[in-house]
């Protein structure tokens, strides 16, 4: 009986192998049919779940760039084909998605949207000959384990420094308070860099308040402390969701001349407080991208994006858009999609994107000009214009 069973099982295995073998030759000609094989480009990010807004923005920005490049003839005559995988922001799923993309035949990788997932994928891709260019993974240390990893956005410590410089340059305040999330690397990293730069510039930090994932629903005590600090500028390097709760509870308690200053994590805040957009009044957001900028390339991008998605692109969409163009520039310089060659090319190219003009250092970081958007009654405009 046992023998019979094992025979049957063996027969089934042989058949399934044969089935696999039969599949392959059938699919290859389909790809090579026509002119040239497509150049496969893969992205990973949260498309569902709590942080879906960030992933969807990046994906739409990427799609827009792919569409434009394909219409203009592709990269070196090859048309681009995009696959964007949903990770829900979870590093484990992101690594699985990365493997799936490699099996699919990905030649160019956009890494992941979030820092946490980018860190694991960057480490996992160490021995693969592929370049990873994350549009928005901003945490400082995530690119260290792999010298073929780069990013389009600011890194956290640079953002913290730029935020302090911005306050100084625009003479916004010489005394500030801070509210940050003490169990998120992003928030802690920004705060520490901000604090370091403030000490250097002589900006006093009058009050520091924190919260955690478990206590992000009730900001009563923090608001009381921040009110008592009596400052005109509160630095909030936190994500849009807790920020919406904080600002809702703070509404009407702070004076009209008190500003809340945050970084890229605040992007999408208006959708979070859609029931009453005046909640986001006096919110300043540090960004390399402003949709109402007068630059011609930005205007063209915003117009095309609005036509395609019926919404105004945020900086995540802009980061995604620039990432694809940066990959294009690097591949044209390198002459192949080999990771090592592309990594070398990355340090040599200069890309004038919608988030500013970018040059990269070998550690994967880029430095570009920062602006701030200020929100008033549901619209964001460039601060100081």
């Amino acid at each position: 009986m046992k023998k019979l069973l094992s025979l049957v099982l063996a027969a089934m295995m042989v058949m399934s192998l044969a089935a696999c073998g039969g599949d392959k030759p059938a699919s290859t000609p389909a790809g090579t049919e026509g002119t040239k094989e497509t150049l496969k480009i893969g992205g990973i990010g949260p498309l569902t779940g709590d942080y879906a807004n960030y992933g969807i923005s990046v994906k739409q920005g990427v799609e827009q760039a792919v569409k434009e490049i394909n219409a203009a003839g592709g990269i070196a005559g090859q048309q681009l084909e995009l696959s964007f995988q949903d990770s829900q922001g979870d590093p484990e799923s992101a690594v699985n998605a990365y493997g799936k993309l490699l099996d699919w035949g990905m030649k160019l990788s956009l890494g992941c949207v979030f820092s946490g997932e980018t860190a694991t994928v960057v480490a996992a891709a160490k021995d693969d000959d592929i370049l990873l260019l994350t549009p928005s993974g901003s945490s400082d240390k995530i690119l260290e384990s792999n010298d073929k990893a780069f990013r389009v956005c600011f890194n956290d410590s640079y953002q913290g420094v730029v935020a302090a410089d911005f306050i100084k340059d625009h003479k916004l305040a010489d005394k500030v308070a801070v509210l940050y999330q003490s169990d998120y690397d992003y928030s802690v990293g920004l705060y520490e860099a901000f604090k370091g730069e403030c000490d250097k510039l002589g900006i006093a930090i009058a009050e520091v308040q924190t919260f955690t994932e478990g206590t992000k629903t009730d900001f009563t005590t923090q608001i009381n402390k921040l009110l008592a600090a009596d400052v005109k500028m509160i630095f909030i390097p936190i994500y849009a969701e807790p920020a919406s709760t904080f600002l809702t509870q703070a509404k009407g308690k702070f004076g009209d001349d008190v500003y809340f200053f945050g970084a890229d994590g605040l992007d999408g805040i208006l959708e979070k407080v859609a029931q009453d957009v005046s909640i986001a009044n006096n919110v300043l957001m540090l960004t390399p991208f402003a949709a109402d900028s007068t630059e011609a390339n930005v205007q063209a991008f915003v117009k095309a994006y609005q036509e395609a998605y019926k919404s105004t692109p945020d900086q995540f969409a802009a980061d995604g858009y620039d990432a694809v163009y940066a990959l294009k520039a690097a591949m044209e310089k390198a002459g192949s999609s080999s990771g090592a060659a592309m990594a070398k090319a990355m340090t040599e190219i200069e890309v004038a994107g919608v988030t500013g003009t970018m040059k990269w250092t070998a550690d994967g970081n880029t430095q570009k000009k920062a602006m701030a958007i200020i929100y008033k009654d549901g619209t964001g405009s460039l601060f100081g214009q």
Partner: protein
Amino acid sequence: MIEFIKTLISGLGLGSIYALIALGYTMVYGIAKMLNFAHGDVIMVGAYAGIVAFTSAGLPPVFTVFLSVLACTLLGITIEHFAYKPLRGASSLSVLITAIGMSYLLQNLALMIFGSQQKAYPQYIKLGQVSIGPVTVDGITLLTLGVTACIMVGMSFFINRTKLGKAMRAVAEDRGAAELMGISVDRTIALTFAIGSALAAVASMCYGLTYVYIKPTTGAMPGIKAFTAAVFGGIGSLPGAMLGGIALGVIEQMAKTYISPLWADAIVFAVLVLVLVVRPTGLLGKEIQEKV
């Protein structure tokens, strides 16, 4: 001093919400001898019912509250009837696991229907800020305190002075004897769930008006805190649940203000452990003598 009073008042507000939820836990435990871990999620359902009634259906505030209470009451009775009643004779462990399963079922249903993005609870009662001398507090906090105080008075009247209340106490005391006296145990337990869930709906209103944003997991943390409050005050005891809830809220806000938000939860639970070491049955719990 002003900071202390402000913290105290916000602690009382938060504690009132905990107390309202804890009442549901403690009543169900006292009468059905089970931990209804799905109770926290009933608040979440109540809050979503409020959002649907006011924002989507455009009902006036009074009907919104009424509909929310009705939805929770029906939900409570339904859960009891289909999930817990068939397990009445089963071991308490099976009932506990069923309750945990019910909690996840409700959360995932809400996730399917409303999605994972937060939704804003309609602010149909706008009270702004109230200044009492140098202290400014949210009007909503005072409303929560008032509502909770009324409910507490009403509940103690109901339990101590009415026939149904007497029946509930009798079932809590000795289920078999109560049945022999002609009290319908099933109906009393269903009534307990109905009242507990209605109180959860009131808590959801206070929660929504104070903290605004609702998600499918909104009920989880307040549920656990309220359960802690019920144990803290002595599970099975109504005044204990109220005291426990208020104490927990005040300790939490004090810890956040004077120590650190990072430590707030740890301190709350450390206090719970200390109280249970000194008084194993909680602050107002009855000493149970095991008869051998």
